[in-house]
C-alpha cells in the first residue's frame, strides 16, 4: 500500500473525524448555552438569530478558501490530517508554512508525496499541532484571571451606558490597527517591489463594494443587506482578482 493510500485510509479518517466531531459538539453546546443565557438576561431573540445568520453567511466564503487549503495539502499529507488541522485550531496561512518547514526539518526536500514516509508524516503532524497550541493552553490557565483583571466580563450594561465605553473605543481602534497592519503590508509589498499590486486592487474593490452595501442599507432602508455585506464585498474582491490576475 502506498504512503498516500495509508494516509487516506478509513482509520485515519476515523481518528481525525472523532476529534472534529468532538469540537463540533462543543460548539453546539456553547451555542445553546449562550442562546439560553441571552434569553434569560432579556436579550432580543431576533438579534441573536440575526447574529447566527450573519455569522453563517460571513463564514461561508472564507470556509471555501480554507477547503482549498485542505485540497492543497492533501496531495502530500493525504486528506484526513489537513481536514483535521484546518477544522480545529489551525489557520490556512499557518498550516501551509509549518508543514513545509516541518518537512524540511525531517529531511525532505519539501512537502511532497514522493519523499513522504510514515515517520516524516507523524513528525509533521506533531509539529503542526504543537506549534499552534499556545492560545488554547493559555486559555486553560489564564483566561479566567485575565478577563477578571481587565473587568470586561463584569461590566454591566448600565455602567457601560453611563461610563463612556472606553473599552468599545479601544476595541474599534484595535481592529483599525489590525486592518491597517495588513493593508499597510500590501502597500509596503507593492512599493518596495517584493509583491504585486493585486492585493491592493482586490482590497480597493472589496472596500468600494462594501461602501455600496452600506449606502443601500443606511440610505435606502435595505437593512437586511447588512448580513451579506462582508460576503458580497469579498466575492466582488475575489472576482476582481480573477479579472486582474
Amino acid at each position: 500500500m502506498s504512503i498516500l493510500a495509508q494516509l487516506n485510509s478509513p482509520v485515519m479518517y476515523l481518528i481525525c473525524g472523532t476529534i472534529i466531531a468532538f469540537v463540533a459538539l462543543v460548539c453546539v453546546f456553547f451555542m445553546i448555552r449562550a442562546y439560553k443565557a441571552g434569553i434569560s438576561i432579556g436579550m432580543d431573540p431576533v438579534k441573536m438569530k440575526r447574529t447566527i445568520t450573519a455569522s453563517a453567511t460571513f463564514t461561508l466564503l472564507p470556509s471555501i478558501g480554507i477547503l482549498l487549503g485542505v485540497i492543497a495539502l492533501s496531495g502530500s499529507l493525504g486528506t484526513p490530517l489537513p481536514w483535521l488541522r484546518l477544522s480545529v485550531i489551525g489557520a490556512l496561512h499557518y498550516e501551509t508554512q509549518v508543514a513545509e518547514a516541518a518537512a524540511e526539518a525531517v529531511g525532505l526536500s519539501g512537502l511532497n508525496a514522493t519523499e513522504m514516509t510514515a515517520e516524516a508524516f507523524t513528525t509533521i503532524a506533531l509539529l503542526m499541532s504543537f506549534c499552534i497550541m499556545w492560545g488554547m493552553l493559555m486559555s486553560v490557565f489564564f483566561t479566567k484571571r485575565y478577563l477578571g483583571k481587565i473587568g470586561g466580563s463584569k461590566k454591566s450594561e448600565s455602567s457601560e451606558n453611563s461610563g463612556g465605553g472606553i473599552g468599545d473605543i479601544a476595541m474599534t481602534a484595535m481592529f483599525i490597527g489590525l486592518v491597517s497592519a495588513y493593508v499597510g503590508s500590501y502597500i509596503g509589498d507593492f512599493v518596495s517591489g517584493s509583491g504585486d499590486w493585486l492585493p491592493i486592487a482586490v482590497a480597493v474593490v472589496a472596500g468600494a463594494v462594501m461602501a455600496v452595501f452600506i449606502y443601500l442599507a443606511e440610505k435606502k432602508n435595505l437593512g437586511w443587506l447588512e448580513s451579506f455585506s462582508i460576503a458580497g464585498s469579498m466575492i466582488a474582491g475575489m472576482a476582481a482578482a480573477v479579472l486582474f490576475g
Partner: protein
Amino acid sequence: MSDLEKNAAFEAYNQKSHTYGRIACIITLAMLIGAPFLMGFYLGAMPDMAGFVRGFLAVGLVWSVSCIAEYLVYTPMLGAGGSYLAFMTGNLINMKIPCAVNARDMVGAKAGTPENEIISTLSIATSSLVTVVVLAIGVVMLIPLQPILQAPALQPAFDCVVPALFGAMAYKYYRGNLKIALPTLIVMGTLFILVPSLTGSTSFMILPSGAIAIGLALVLNKKSKKGAK
C-alpha cells in the same frame, strides 16, 4: 427579572463558561497531541523527536510567540465563551475575529457587556460549525470538486481571500474614524516600505499597529471630552 437578578444569572453563566471551556480545551489538546502518536501506532512509525525539535526551532518559536500575542490581543475582544471556542477552532484573524466584530456591530452590542459576550459566543460557535460542515462536505466531495476549485483561472481569487476581507473591513472601520485610521495606515505602510522583510511577520505587526490606533483613539477621546466641557 430585575437588573440584579439578570447580572447574577449572567455571572453564573460566565463562571460555567470558564469551567466548560477549560475542560473542552484540555480534552482537545490531549486529542490533538495524542493523534500523531495514534497515527504513528497505526502506520508503524512514531514521530522523529530530533526532527521535531529541529522543526520547532526553525518555525515553532516564531509561531508560538504569534499565538501568545494573539491570545493577549483577542481574548478581551471575545470574552470567555468566544475566546475558548476561537482558540480551539483557530482561523482567528482571517475569520473568527472579523465575524464576531461584524456580529457585535450589527446588533449594536457594546464591548465588555453581557450582550457582547453572548453575541461573540454565538457568532464564533456558528462560524466554527459552518467551517466544520463546509470542510466535511468538501472532503466528501473532494474528488469531483478538485478540478473546479483548482482550476487555474480561479486561483487568484482564492489567493486573495484575505485582501478581499480586509478591504471590506477597512471601509467599514475607516469611515467615521479617519483621524485614527489614516495616521495608523501611513505609519504601518511606511514601516513595511522601509523594512520589506516585516511583511513576513504581519501578525506581529498587529501589536504596534493596534497600539498606535488605540493611543490615537484615547487621545482623541480625551480631546473631545475636554471640548465638550
